[in-house]
């Protein structure tokens, strides 16, 4: 049904949505083009340069050369990659173990302070990452409050160190990214039907049994999302290993940084970047398969 509007344009329902589509496309275009030009193009550049070489002067040259990819088989890189994977996975596990009780307490026992408590967790996370890391390294240093407290209760002796060890690096990653675990867990616990817990109790499940067989399964998607959100930045981090670990604890991020700044071997740096992306991609695929299976089960 066509009708003339005061503005004089001929419109009907279909015409309206067609002209709308054009407007929406025009609105979408600049941002999309910008992202394609600066982000997608640059990522393709990294992938291409991974096949490149360096000339005798150290300048990167594009090419079609698998030497950098082959170099990834070097045991030295494999050790760093496995260490990064290990650190990132342990950091995920620690985040889960710490974040779960925190999210649980706030979501189920936070009362009217819920939002305030979550804000108290989120806001410092927006504070400068380096400044927080630096403060954390002071807190964990040999004369710092954490080691003194641990020594006082006999959990550490005079030789125990946190900094300059793998523990320090993991502690840094956990401190840096735990908020990514707390938020999805909190959201999952908030969404959860609390009568499920009561049902568990009514069926004579003890608190622990109810927790492991009711609460935990009901929130496992939140935990999985949190694990991915912690794992991604933890794998790429190079500040934690630099400030909290020693030369023996470098992660793949430190290698990449080194190849681009000190080593000046950009093709090799690009290859390492692609290697890291490949590992993350496999992790993401696993997560997607898991959630799809969960959704399929929920739909059934």
């Amino acid at each position, binding site marked *: 049904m066509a009708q003339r509007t005061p503005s004089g344009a001929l419109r009907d329902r279909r015409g309206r949505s067609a002209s709308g589509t054009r407007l929406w496309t025009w609105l979408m275009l600049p941002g999309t083009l910008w992202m394609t030009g600066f982000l997608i193009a640059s990522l393709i550049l990294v992938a291409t340069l991974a096949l490149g070489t360096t000339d005798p002067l150290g300048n990167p040259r594009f090419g079609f050369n698998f030497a950098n990819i082959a170099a990834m088989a070097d045991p030295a890189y494999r050790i760093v990659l496995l260490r990064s994977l290990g650190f990132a996975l342990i950091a995920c596990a620690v985040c889960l173990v710490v974040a779960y009780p925190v999210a*649980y307490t706030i979501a189920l026992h936070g009362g009217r302070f819920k939002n305030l408590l979550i804000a108290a967790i*989120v806001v410092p996370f927006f504070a400068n990452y380096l400044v927080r890391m630096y403060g954390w390294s002071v807190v964990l240093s040999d004369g710092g409050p954490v080691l003194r407290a641990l020594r006082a209760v006999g959990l550490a002796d005079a030789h125990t160190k946190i900094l300059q060890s793998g523990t320090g690096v993991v502690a840094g990653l956990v*401190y840096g990214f735990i908020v990514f675990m707390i938020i999805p867990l*909190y959201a999952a616990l908030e969404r959860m039907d609390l009568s499920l817990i009561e049902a568990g109790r009514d069926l004579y499940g003890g608190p622990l049994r109810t927790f492991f067989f009711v609460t935990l399964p009901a929130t496992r998607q939140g935990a999985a999302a949190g694990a991915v959100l912690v794992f991604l930045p933890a794998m790429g981090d190079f500040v934690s290993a630099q400030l909290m670990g020693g030369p023996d604890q470098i992660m793949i991020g430190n290698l990449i940084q080194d190849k681009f700044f000190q080593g000046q071997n950009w093709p090799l740096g690009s290859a390492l970047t692609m290697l890291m992306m490949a590992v993350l991609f496999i992790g993401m695929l696993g997560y997607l398969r898991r959630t799809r299976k969960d959704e399929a089960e929920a739909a059934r």
Partner: protein
Amino acid sequence: MTLRTPHRRHRRGTDRRPRLALTVTALFFLLLYLPIAVVVLFSFNGQKSLTVLKGFSLRWYSAFFHDSVLLESLGMSLRVSLVAMAGSVVLGVALALGLVRCRTRLGSLAGLIMLVPLITPEIVTGVAAMLLFKGMDITLSSGTVMLAEITFSISYVTVILRSRIAALNPEVEEAAMDLGATRWQALRLVTLPALLPSILASAVLVFALVFDDFVLAYFTTGVDPQPLSVRIYSAIRFGVQPTINAVGTLMLAGSVGLVGLALAIPRLFGRRGGLDLLSGK
């Protein structure tokens, strides 16, 4: 819980406070704030020491305000954040509007592209941006930092705005058009004002994020001047100066203030739901 059975087991089960979880939570908050407290406390230290707290002084703040290199970096960070905020808000809001309303194949492709920065570690986007600029023979400077930060921040703005736009009632816009407004007028006079709190909140948030960002700035900055966070990085790597505690404290205060503002904006406008940061939905 309106129905309560006089069942002992039941009562014990639901009413008991989880002592272990409470302890972990308390410890977590202690450890969350301890590092921040340390930086703030030592910024007022009378001594040069970073382990012994003795006397109160503002000497490290005064040292910062007399350090021309750090001040130059501060200026650059402020400029970069302002430009990145303006650019990413304009591009991001338009992109979000398009993404929600445009259900074509191009729309879903754009939606995928927008997610890339969120699932890529920052070091990768940093390396990639640096290679792009070097490949195009662009000298790294504050300009390249701005370009890279805009690219990264568009996603934030779009993610924040997208849920708000989806929550708007499209019939209001339709009503405006039935009253004679063109689609563009309806957008400008009805939709954008309704989105204003969310737009402002995301702008403030982007400013804070860009100002504090280190990784992207590190890979895309030139030699002189460098953004403040890059300066802090080199300072804490090569022997710590207490001045960094003062700079750090100022930056902490700044970003906490900005994030607080971003969270408060919807309330200042007298309505809820500007930022979905806290609900996690």
